[in-house]
């Protein structure tokens, strides 16, 4: 065999799930000290390929060479000792255990009696946390961390294996600018040490910032591998979705009408204080801020999921009493939550049930039973209108791609005929193609006269879509800005970090 | 002087007949000014031992015990001996087969021989059908591992094995329960049809369940059914001619008898270690005597 020049070679990998061909002969080469980006639509097979590599799934066929040796039939534990570690797309903390036990799970340090050495574990954890500049006691339970910090722990863990190759599957989806930059710092340091990194992300801007090479996937096959400086963003998108995309943020100006929702001095016991804003008919109202700023909580409180301690919510000029999501829905609100898995989809239920759950009142027959045929008809309308890709209405939603799941949830809320639609991170973890479609949908809704409140951590998205923007910092509103062409990401960041405060 | 204090440990109150015995013991205690406490072991040997320990640490003067398991009474006998208090077993005999002098000091038994109930049923069956009859029979067994269930079944077989014409078709445990007696009998009717001539049940509840099944299949008149205990429902059923026989255990004799012996021992009287209270076969002929 000729002298190896790549750390990793994956040759002609195929992977079949019952009924699904997820990988159809994929090749991937990663050199030493290279940051190799992997991009592709939702369901293209990126995570599957990586799970094969880390030994979670056996490959159906194909060869893997790592550090010059052919490796086969190995477990995750073996992959980890071989020098491959991975940050997984789905955050998976053991919630009620301390940080340090999460870090060393599967390789707990032992003392000479063969028992777990807690002191040693603590010391090692301190060191690792220091390395990523996370200032937390290693004995803190994971459950007490914010999502972003949990993700940082995951990153720390992946690094602590001292691996030759670190796979990062959408490590930044739960991070905002600040942590993201920290992550990039770490990646550059690792690269200097000769560590190779596979970096998966739907945020193409990141790819240009950090990657050396990029491989594009479509439909279980690779479309091409290029050095990053040989490509433009548009080229990558074209490779990904197989066609050119017109406009990422298809914002059409629409007539903005009277005020529909008015929030006055809303406060929560713990998460936020004194929030006031109003949203008008046909308006897209963006809420920006760092992770943990309390944006989600504001919306949850308005929608009735959390109790407020003071403040008023006015709808159409009338004071509204909202104490539960039921009240929220009765007041013609809809809420696309940020955590699709935890509070969005009914994983094992069909697409139809997922759409229809809040809407059965519309489909009752004369004797008060649910008219399944009407449900099917109603759901089909939305499937067509917003182009949900599903083999049938009965398909369990967990088998759809992330973007399509998100569209199903959109359909759910649109069917309730809301006046006010809250969208919390509507495009998190969604590929560019699907993203653009969702933006199109949002714009269309606004032009139909709905008011849209959109929380997002992606500033380009906020800037590209909103009419007005509220910025929050640590539970306070720091800015209420008109979106105009001279508003920049930097300005918003100043408000988000509390450097600038208008209130 | 202080009132005399007696602890009564029941094996299982979910067994109707045990509540009858306990009722008589309690009535006797009330009538004689005894400080009476009782407990229910729920058919759990270990729990019974625990409860008896509680009685002893509460300072009872005597113990009356219906054993959950007759073979597991050694620790309890020892506990009583250590506490130097008399121990009277009732209803279930831990000393079956022992001679009077082999029984530990200060320990007594009042009750019947469980096997007799089975023997009485079988003998009555032979009397009704004749020694040379060709007849298939089935046994509804009580809760697995109850001494009474084992012994009564044993008694049935002991007698009927002597007659070659009598054939044991099946035996199955119905956990003393009426609904199980019914379901099992329904299936036996399917399995054996006309072959089935008699059902001997370890207790009345299961016998009554069997009768329901036979009546529903309209073949009650072709099958003899017997139980044990003579509970109220069984009395009625015998009078109505639905149940062919039951075997009476003398609940009063046992409940009162156990307490009486404890009192006699405490009074310093000399008492035989074993007091047998015989079973009585109850049939339509003599049911009138048991009103």
């Amino acid at each position, binding site marked *: 065999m000729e002298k190896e020049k790549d750390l990793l070679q994956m040759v002609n990998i195929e992977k079949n799930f019952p009924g699904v061909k997820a990988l159809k002969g994929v090749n991937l080469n990663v050199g030493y000290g290279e940051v190799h980006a992997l991009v592709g639509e939702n369901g293209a097979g990126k995570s599957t390929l990586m799970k094969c590599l880390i030994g979670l799934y056996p490959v159906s066929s194909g060869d893997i060479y790592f550090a010059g040796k052919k490796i086969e039939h190995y477990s995750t534990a073996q992959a980890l000792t071989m020098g491959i570690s991975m940050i997984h797309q789905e955050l998976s903390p053991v919630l009620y255990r301390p940080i340090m036990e999460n870090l060393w799970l599967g390789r707990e340090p032992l003392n000479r009696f063969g028992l777990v050495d807690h002191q040693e574990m603590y010391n090692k954890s301190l060191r690792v946390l220091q390395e990523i500049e996370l200032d937390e006691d290693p004995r803190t339970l994971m459950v007490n961390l914010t999502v972003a910090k949990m993700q940082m722990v995951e990153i720390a863990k992946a690094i602590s294996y001292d691996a030759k190759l670190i796979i990062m599957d959408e490590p930044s989806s739960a991070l905002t600018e600040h942590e993201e930059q920290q992550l990039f710092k770490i990646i550059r340091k690792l690269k200097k040490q000769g560590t190779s990194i596979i970096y998966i992300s739907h945020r193409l801007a990141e790819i240009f910032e950090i990657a050396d090479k990029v491989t594009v996937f479509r439909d279980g096959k690779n479309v091409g591998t290029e050095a990053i400086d040989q490509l433009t963003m548009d080229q990558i998108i074209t490779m990904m979705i197989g066609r050119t995309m017109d406009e990422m943020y298809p914002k059409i100006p629409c007539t903005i009408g009277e005020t529909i929702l008015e929030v006055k001095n809303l406060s929560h016991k713990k998460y936020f204080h004194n929030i006031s804003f109003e949203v008008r008919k046909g308006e897209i109202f963006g809420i920006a801020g760092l992770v943990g700023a309390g944006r989600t909580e504001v919306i949850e409180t308005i929608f009735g999921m959390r109790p407020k301690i003071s403040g008023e919510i006015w709808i159409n000029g009338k004071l509204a009493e909202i104490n539960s999501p039921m009240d929220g829905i009765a007041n013609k609100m809809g809420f696309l939550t940020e955590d699709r898995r935890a509070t969005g989809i009914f994983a*094992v*239920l069909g697409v139809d049930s997922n759409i229809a759950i809040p809407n059965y009142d519309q489909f009752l027959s004369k004797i008060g039973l649910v008219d399944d045929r009407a449900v099917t008809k109603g759901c089909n309308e939305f499937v067509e209108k917003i182009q949900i890709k599903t083999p049938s209405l009965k398909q369990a939603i967990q088998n759809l791609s992330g973007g399509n799941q998100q569209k199903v949830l959109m359909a759910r809320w649109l069917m309730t005929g809301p006046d006010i639609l809250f969208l919390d991170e509507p495009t998190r973890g969604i590929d560019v193609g699907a993203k653009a479609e969702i933006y199109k949908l949002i714009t269309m809704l606004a032009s139909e006269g709905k008011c849209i409140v959109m929380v997002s951590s992606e500033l380009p998205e906020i800037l590209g879509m909103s009419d007005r923007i509220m910025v929050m910092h640590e539970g306070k509103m720091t800015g209420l800005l008109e979106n105009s062409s001279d508003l920049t990401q930097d300005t918003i960041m100043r408000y988000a970090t509390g450097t600038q405060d208008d209130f | 002087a202080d009132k005399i204090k007696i602890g009564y440990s029941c094996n299982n109150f979910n067994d109707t007949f045990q509540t009858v015995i306990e009722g008589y013991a309690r009535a006797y205690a009330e009538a004689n000014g005894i400080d009476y406490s009782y407990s229910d072991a729920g058919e759990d040997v270990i729990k019974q031992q625990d409860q008896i320990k509680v009685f002893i640490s509460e300072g009872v003067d005597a113990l009356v015990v219906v054993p959950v398991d007759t073979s597991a009474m050694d620790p309890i006998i020892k506990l009583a001996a250590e506490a130097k208090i008399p121990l009277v077993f009732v209803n279930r005999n831990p000393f079956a087969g022992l001679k009077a002098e082999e029984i530990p000091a200060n320990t007594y038994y009042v009750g019947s021989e469980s096997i007799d109930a089975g023997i009485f049923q079988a003998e009555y069956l032979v009397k009704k059908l004749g020694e040379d009859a060709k007849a298939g029979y089935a046994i509804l067994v009580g809760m697995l591992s109850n001494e009474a269930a084992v012994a009564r079944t044993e008694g049935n077989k002991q007698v009927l094995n002597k007659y070659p014409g009598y054939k044991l078709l099946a035996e199955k445990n119905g956990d003393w329960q009426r609904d199980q007696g019914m379901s099992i009998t329904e*299936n036996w009717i399917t399995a054996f049809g006309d072959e089935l001539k008699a059902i001997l049940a370890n207790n009345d509840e299961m016998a009554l369940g069997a009768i329901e099944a036979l009546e529903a299949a309209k073949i009650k008149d072709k099958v003899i059914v017997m139980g044990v205990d003579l509970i109220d429902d069984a009395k009625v059923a015998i009078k109505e001619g639905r149940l062919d026989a039951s075997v009476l255990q003398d609940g009063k004799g046992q409940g009162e008898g156990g307490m009486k012996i404890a009192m006699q021992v405490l009074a310093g009287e000399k008492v035989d270690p074993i007091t047998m209270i015989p079973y009585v076969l109850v049939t339509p002929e003599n049911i009138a005597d048991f009103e």
Partner: protein
Amino acid sequence: MKHQNRLQEIFTKYGIVFVLIVMIIAMSMIKPSFRTLNNILNILTQCSVYGILALGMTVVIVSKGIDLSVGSILALCAVIAASLGQSSTASTKYFANMAELPIIVPILAGLLIGAICGAINGGLIAFTGIPAFIATLGMMTICRGFAYIYTSGKPVSTLIPSFEFIGQGRLLGIPMPVVIYLGMIIITKILLNNTRFGKRTFAVGGNINAAEVSGVNVKKILLWVYTYMGMCAGVAAIVSTGRMVSAQPGLASGYELTAIASTTIGGTSQSGGIGTVWGAVVGALVLSVMRNGMTILGIQSYLQQIVEGVVIIVAVILDMRKNARKA
């Protein structure tokens, strides 16, 4: 190739039905008496009581719950219903001076008691948030205790003849317990598949947080899920009282496990959100055919227990394969 896949698919989808059919065919060949109409009605009658419990249990398990108290609730309903349905000739009467009541009174009483006990379960689970396992474990001993206290441990018997009709009468040649069972199947099927309550029950079992966000009143649904289970126990109590023409406080102990086993054999998933009424029926039939068959074959009781355990495990393993691709 394609064809074979399709066969395999049908087999995995309806695996348990095949198991049932194989059992029936095997039994019929070994013992011709198994095949008689009478025995078939027998099998159906025998599974009616726990079959009805399994229907309610399906709703409970679909909501991601469990109910260990159904056997005890059944017993409590039965003794109370029976005590209100005694004939005037009864030797030990519960309500000494009460006239004979029409059959509807004990029936309603049984249903009501069942509903109340179920509502207590549901209330505890919905409003205190304790696990269903614990709430219903507590209620299991509580209801059993009340059944014994109510009866002082003695059976309640000599009931009015209408009770006998419920247990042993026939409608168009079909035994009444089977008629009632069929009725409950239809009601539960409609409830679970054709009402808002049913759809929402699936949602609660599938993802309780998402259900809440979608405006489902989760507490109310849980309350009604267990109330319905309690009512099923009430119906089962009436059937069982009718069959015995009497009621015992020790009745139906362990039936909760039979009901759960039936439901699970029928493919209802304990992780919530998945389940069918037909599955519960097939599962109950599997157990019933097995018990009937083993008794007819004269298999020793101890051995029967072992076989039953093995069948439950194997049936569920077979059924798991069906869902494997989703996992």
